């Protein structure tokens, strides 16, 4: 692989994903509006919101510490790194070996810990409530997530996402029953980790039900903009991890320009479908009570474990 073209691909992929992440969110919201017979705000709305927030003056509580002020930047950095590592458009990127799937889970955990700490920094009742619930969802989702990823990595004998994609995507088509279990588990984790229905509701500000929104109540202006941008990046990162593991066809090798163009087209189709699917899921299900979350994520864990056992029993 040519180093220079690898770096060009790397930068291109990161910038592209960072730029389209709010669009992804706009698309999901628009689909949701259509499904609810509303006209919707349009898919460009998140950009307008970001622009508005960046223009505003930041308001900060008197007792906010440096931790509170730097967390939005740390979050944004973490998510930027995540989309740099996931083979969204191409495998064998120069940054890809910096982290495998386990390190990627660690990266999301790092972001979660920082946002929870920032939520507790001001010392408001809602902030601590949000932090407590977020960490609860986190510890329930993480083992399920890792079991899902272990199933995928046992098939390809690797935890590196690039190798997983090459094993599953660039070979002849084999159907792995274990991956079906893993895919359902992954979807459940994705919903929980990205504060989507049925675990959390991204559009609620009902005080007693919110999780993610409760944590970021004290943020305003540019800080809030970065936090929101980071959450849309996180959603995109999760969806692209799902794509890489479960439907990897079409992802290019680095340095292959025609492959890259095809990859962009394929990615757009996949993301469009994924966004519409997410909106549909959120429309047909209702938010759960917070203490049903253990059942939900416990199910995800059991499914992932079943997937792994299926692999050991059927696929060796």
């Amino acid at each position: 692989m040519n180093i220079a073209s690898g770096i060009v691909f790397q930068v291109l992929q990161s910038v592209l994903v960072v730029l389209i992440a709010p669009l992804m969110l706009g698309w999901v919201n628009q689909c949701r509006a259509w499904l609810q017979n509303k006209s919707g705000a349009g898919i460009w709305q998140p950009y307008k919101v970001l622009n508005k927030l960046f223009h505003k003056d930041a308001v900060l509580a008197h007792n906010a510490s440096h931790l509170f002020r730097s967390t939005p930047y740390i979050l944004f950095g973490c998510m930027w790194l995540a989309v740099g590592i996931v083979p969204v458009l191409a495998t064998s990127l120069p940054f890809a070996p910096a982290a495998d799937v386990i390190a990627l889970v660690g990266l999301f955990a790092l972001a979660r810990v920082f946002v929870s700490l920032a939520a507790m920094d001001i010392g408001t009742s809602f902030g601590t409530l949000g932090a407590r619930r977020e960490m609860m969802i986190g510890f329930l989702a993480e083992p399920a997530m890792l079991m899902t990823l272990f199933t995928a990595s046992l098939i390809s004998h690797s935890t590196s996402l690039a190798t997983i994609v090459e094993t599953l995507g660039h070979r002849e088509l084999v159907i792995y029953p274990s991956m079906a279990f893993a895919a359902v588990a992954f979807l459940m984790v994705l919903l929980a980790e990205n504060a989507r229905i049925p675990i959390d509701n991204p559009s609620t500000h009902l005080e007693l039900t919110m999780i993610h929104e409760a944590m970021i109540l004290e943020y305003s202006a540019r800080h809030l903009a970065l936090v929101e941008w980071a959450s849309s990046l996180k959603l995109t990162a999760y969806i692209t991890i799902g794509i890489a593991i479960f439907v990897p066809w079409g992802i290019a090798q680095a340095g292959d320009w025609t492959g890259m163009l095809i990859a962009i087209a394929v990615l757009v189709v996949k993301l469009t479908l994924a966004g519409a699917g997410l909106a549909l899921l959120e429309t047909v299900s209702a938010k759960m009570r917070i203490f049903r979350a253990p059942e939900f994520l416990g199910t995800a864990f059991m499914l992932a474990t079943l997937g792994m056992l299926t692999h050991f029993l059927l696929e060796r």
Partner: protein
Amino acid sequence: MDASFLQPIEAAVTLSVIWIGLGLIGLAFMRAPRLVSHAVFPAGALVSILLAATGLWAIGAPPSAAILPAGLPDLPFHVRIDALSGFFLLLLGGVSFGISLFAVGYFRDTEAATLGQLSLQYHVFLASMAFVLIADDAYLFMVTWESMALSSYFLVTTEHHEERNRKAGFIYLLVAHIGAISILLCFGVLHGGHGDYTFEALRAAELSGFWATVAFLLAFFGFGAKAGMLPLHVWLPEAHPAAPSPVSALMSGVMLKTAIYGMIRVIYDLIGGIRWEWGLTVLLFGAATSLFGVLFALMQHDLKRLLAYHSVENIGIILIGIGLSMVFVGSGHPVAGALGLIAGLYHTLNHAVFKGLLFLGAGAILKSTGLRNLNEMGGLIRYLPHTALYFLIGALAISALPPLNGFVSEWLTFQASLQAPLLESSVVRSLVPIVAAVLALSGALTGMCFVKVYGVAFLGQHRHELAEKPREASRWERAGMLWLAAACLALGLLPVFMIGQLNNVSQALINAGLSNEAMASDWLWLVPTSSAQASYSPIVFLLVIAVVFELTYLVVRQVYHGRLRRSDPWDCGYPEQTSRMEDTADGFGQPVRQIFAPVFLIHREIPRADDPQPVFKQSVQDRHWYWLYRPIARFTEFLSGHVGKLQQGRISIYLLYSFLTLIALLVFAQ
């Protein structure tokens, strides 16, 4: 090497003896407390760093041995230093350096008489640990093991005027001795009746399968008692909070590791011929210990008790690594076994560093505010900014978050567990990834626990009106914490160097190391097996986040603006916010208490509806006291009650006993 040249073993013995000497000097000059705290402890720290260098040297050097002119006639002390001892000496020296520096500031205002004794016990404790690590016969090993237990007992009961601390010391001594008896029996089994207790002879002894397993179990539970393994962990959350903070840091950071050393030394080196069934035992106990430890840690509001439960958890994680290694070595996959062993040993070092740091942080809080109860702290980041920064590094490290050191060792453990497809037995093969899931769960729970600790103690509003403003830790204390925090960063960002050292240890111990491709990778990339399978580069990781952080900061300021206005918190528009509306430590742990309710023994006192001053009381207790320890204690009481009937206090009765014994012996002699 030239014989006249200084050998690692000579350096290690000399340095340990200097430690004892320093302790005695501290005792002799206890009239001059300033001298003791500002000369003896820094000198001890200097010895620490030299010992760490010796350890590092010994990892690469061939084993060197010596016979000390001490001990009983015809029974001299044998000492030997090899790669494994070298690694643990590095750990002991490196961590105790930071702790001794901290101790200079921490013990500054201690009463003169106490300080003299403290100095003696502290340095004898350090020296005993060093001797345990270099002992090459069962005799010296047991003697120094006991002196380590006794000196730490006296350190635990430093504040002996409090009933609670005396009780904690007693429990500690009791469990330590149960463990010591078990280890003694293990050496007895190993030596097999030829009267030679040098490790050389024990290593050579051939054991039948049954006796090898007996020796393994005795060693596993004997050392497990000292390490704080389930169900022998009960002394840990009692003893650690009772001791002064630097001592807690030393006990939790280093002393528990001598038990891990003993376990590896006896099982891998002396018994040898590891079986996968043993490995499975270690693995399952490790998984149970880690999950149990973190769940109980989440229920605590006493900071030092909480940290003690986290030591239980981390010992579990270390045991998972070692168990994996034993499973693989026992089933004939030494390369995967080396990976597990390296993961376990690396976590041993990492835990020593970050737990030392966290205990020192707890000590700094205790010294400046007098508080140990998290529910009374709050907003300390504004008074103790340095301590807050170091504590944050420790908290991120223990929560296994990249790019710090705790993550590297957990990542290696995960990688080792993903070697499971190599195994033949399908039960073990599917059990290993499930243990990895337990590890993931306890890692995530640790994250929650340290968000709780940090959020409640350092962030938010003040919960407690203090008589005076808390003062930041002194320069010595900060230096100690800085050293350990820097070690957390270095071990996290440059793991390849230490992995290379650990590969030597593994080569020496099981004649296998990591694959050639893994060792060939350069310093930037950590590769456990091959770069196609997995790789991790903490430096790139940190660099990308830092660059994006900076760029975003600059771009936002350039394109938009950096205007900022301060105001009251928003909190959905609620006008009044008191510190009573924040989560307490107990409140933060509530989801865990509810989800894992069957694990805990919860006592609740719920007030009646018409109570004018309602009080809600709740306590969470450890079930082990009730199903394991209480029955044993009752049985012992019952037994001693009946044995007591033999004691009549009349001389004629005792003469009768002697007579009956003689008769019995004559019958047997026939």
